[in-house]
């Protein structure tokens, strides 16, 4: 069970959160302009990184805010959390 530092509420047990997958996949502003391939890329294709990944989490049972997390998927170590719209603190 992770101990997650919600950028708003502070450290909380993982059970209060829900995971939302890879971060920084921006919904295309003009979906109709995209080819089926490009749309599939947005919809389904994922890097699924083994290593440092940027991902979305929601403090679902707390403040209900979505935020981003930098986590190493090879050891589950959380390197940073940051608010939506903020730049990642780590490259």
């Amino acid at each position: 069970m992770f101990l997650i530092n919600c950028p708003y509420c502070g450290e909380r047990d993982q059970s209060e959160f829900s995971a939302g997958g890879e971060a920084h996949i921006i919904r295309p502003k003009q979906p109709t302009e995209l080819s089926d391939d490009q749309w599939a890329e947005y919809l389904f294709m994922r890097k699924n990184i083994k290593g440092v990944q940027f991902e979305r989490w929601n403090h679902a049972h707390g403040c209900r805010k979505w935020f981003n997390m930098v986590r190493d998927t090879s050891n589950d170590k959380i390197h940073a959390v940051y608010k939506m719209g903020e730049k990642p603190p780590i490259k």
Partner: protein
Amino acid sequence: MSKNLRITNNKFIDQTTRISFKFDGKTLYGFKGDTLASALLANNIHLVGRSFKYHRPRGIMTCGSEEPNAIVQLGNDPSMTEPNTRATEIELYEGLEASSQNCWPSVKFDIGAVNNFFSPLLPAAFYYKTFMWPANFWKLYEYFIRKSAGLGKSPTEPDKDIYDHRYLHCDVLVVGGGISGIMAAKTAAKNNFNTVLIDDKNILGGNTLFQQNECFKINNSYSNEWLKKEISTLNLFKNLNIKTRTSLAAYHSYNYLLARENLTDHLDFNEKKNKIRQRLWKIRAKKVIIATGAIERPLIFNNNDRPGIILSSSIKKYIDYYGVKCGQKISLFTNNDSAYETAISLSNSGVKVNSLIDIRDKTNSLIVTQAEKLGIKIHWKSTVVNTNGYKKINSIEIMKLSDDGTAVVESKTKEQCDCLGISGGWTPRVHLFTQSGGKLKFRDEDNVFLPDKSDLDQISIGSCNGDFELDDVIKNSVNLTNKFLKVNNNDYEKLEIISSKEIDKKNIWLLPSDKPLGKTKPFLDFQNDSTANDVKLALREGFKSIEHVKRYTTTGMATDQGKLSNMHALGIIAETAGVKMGELGTTTFRPPYTPLTFGAIVGRNVGKFFDITRKTPIHDWHVENKAEFENVGQWKRAWYYPKDNENMYDAVQRESKAARDSAGILDASTLGKIDIQGSDASEFLNRVYTNAWSKLEIGKCRYGLMLNEDGMVYDDGVTTRLSENHYLMTTTTGGAANVLSKLEDYLQTEWPELDVYLTSVTDHYGTVSICGPNSKKILSKLIPDLDLSDKKFPHMSFKSALIDNIKCRVMRISFTGEHSYEINIQSSYAKSVWEKCFEAGKEFNITPYGTETMHLLRAEKGFIIAGQDTDGTMTPVDLQMDWIISKKKYDFIGKRSLYRSDTIREDRKQLVGLLTENPNEILEEGAQIVAKTNKKPIEMLGHVTSSYFSPNLNKSIALAVVKNGKKLKGQKMFVPMKNKTINVTITDTVFLDKENKRLNA
């Protein structure tokens, strides 16, 4: 109790309180403070079980959680019996009943022992190589294999005990209450850390607790006396929480640990009642100090598994702590100094030590000299090559070792004994450390794996960190703890410590024998009966990885999870394969450290607390009126209201008819309700629904379909425009939470520019839905001053109203096709409003109906239920709801997906109506639909999603999805059932009132 096996000058157990217990049906006696194992040994009972594969007689081998053999069935009540409990951990209580496992008819005469005779045919993994002929006989072979598998017996009735959970947050968690753990806990507590110290035994102190030996002294006292004083100071600290009988089960990442506290297992039956049996502590510690000690290793030689062969340190504990002699003529076999402590303890208690067989060359450490002084005979550079005695050891055979230790030389001598203590050195308990993700390093000089690197805030101290001698334990534990906690506790700085130092170290993983290996049985895993031969066979057959060998031979996979066997298996693999042990690595230690009761993991979340039950504010009325309930997600919804022994079918027919003929009333409180405010509310709805919202007039309602980004229907519901920038959205019952969370997601992440706020009001409102031609009259009785004319209050509109001065919102919307109203009122008044409606409707025979009737009524109208008529593969077009997709809107969730090459296909599965040729034949929901029945394989075109007998149309109706269904209207199809084929015709989805006349009736 054999008097001569108990010494009386023992201070740890209460020899004044005699306890009676039963083993294998025989009444025996022990004392308060005994374990089942110590009491059995005191009764001269060694043989307690049979091994897994060969059914060899097995005895008590240890005194703790690493016990592989003394595994017994506890109790025989079908609900309270417990299989596979370790006799070495069971605290004796009055009336305890235990029995041997895996033997028939008895542990003394076990038919299964014939396997031992056939053992040459049963090498490791023999089962992969046989039982293949004839091919269909595996079922039969397996029947017999299964019968012989397993150890104890599962209970057959539900458990009556209660289990519980507790969360615990602390600064420092110390695991293990031996000497190093106690010093660490005291240091932490003294420095104001909120500290928890846990130990699996019923008393703190570990092995030092009974260490009364001249060779181990602190400040001129025996180490146990010094430690006792330390322990007595612990209760001074209010910030130190001590938990005994608490076993650390799992150490997960982020310093999340699970510990099982045993609260009643040691109590007698009367005291156990109505108490929590076990409590699982879910601990979140800022810092963790592991002080779990070490496990003594056995030695691997021919027939090293007979009852009476016991770990040397356990013999010491039995004599020093329990006052029990494991034998009258004890021999000891060792490769290190610790067996000498046992020899001295035995000698001091008046037990004859035949001799001590030491594989090392003569050594003269303090403790060895001490033992020699006591006149104990020592065979240096010797090994035991065989043991004799079937149900209990009666003699051993000793030979000299060659200089390189690979062979035995000279003549064999036989020595009578009734117990053999074995000591193969020590293995640090690094299990928790590795569970937490820590990496190990290997120390060559004494062949131990030690904690190395960890990402977590933790340390290991004491013998689990590889310090085996008293002075090292104290010095290093203190230093490590101080450094770890960033404190400077100098309490232990000036201790004068006497500690015997081991001078010589020697280890032989597989001791040589005078017989060829194939003729010997040197056991590694005592419970699973795997031998060194098995490991070597695996290597010969090409299984190289330690994990392969483990799985091929099952070494380390028994209920002790290899606590005694893993190191030797690794050693033998390394030796045989010619690789260094440090490079070989270990198998993964998986949680739990010792087997953990399912009940404890689940806690009180059983029975009525298995899952949350959600109830509507009108629930009690449904109960009072004998409703049957349907589970919808976590909600309890009234399903139907049987009258006078009606079955569901009859009740639903009656309810459905009443709703159309006069009036029906439904509790719709479970629908999700989301309050939407903000200047961009309309734009927001445009983006989340497929249809357009900007032009919806204030006071009007509109039905909306919500898609996933993949274009498939996700949810639906009616949304009402309450004012310019204020909407009330309804969702399906099951979709409510997901919809809100999805909408919040879009608002927060994709559209932060939108000025929109969402607030769930699902529970604030109770929703009473009345429908039928008389619903208007009923409502007018309830709210006389509300103008219900079609002009003032048309279909798909809403009004604020007062019922008895309480504000409510009335929507004129319909899911049944009838003239219908939904009254939303704050929950505390919902039941009262329901009752008022019921009262007002009495003259119209208002009939309460449940979800089943609601489903029937809407099916008559061809309205879909998301989740029943859709399954995550249906687009709005598939549902023949093209009209709801706005062509003007640039974008909405899922729009782009509707234009992919597969989603624009015209022959997708589409929602249609179905009528059976025989109007009385009701199709089964889920039944498949085909066009031809003769061609094989039969192509399935779709399936029935909803099906009912419509009392209002007096015929069976169904909704279905059918490939290219839109174009197949009027076509005949078949529904092939198991025993018959039903003829059907594809129709329009609307069966009743296609002109929607009833809405305004």
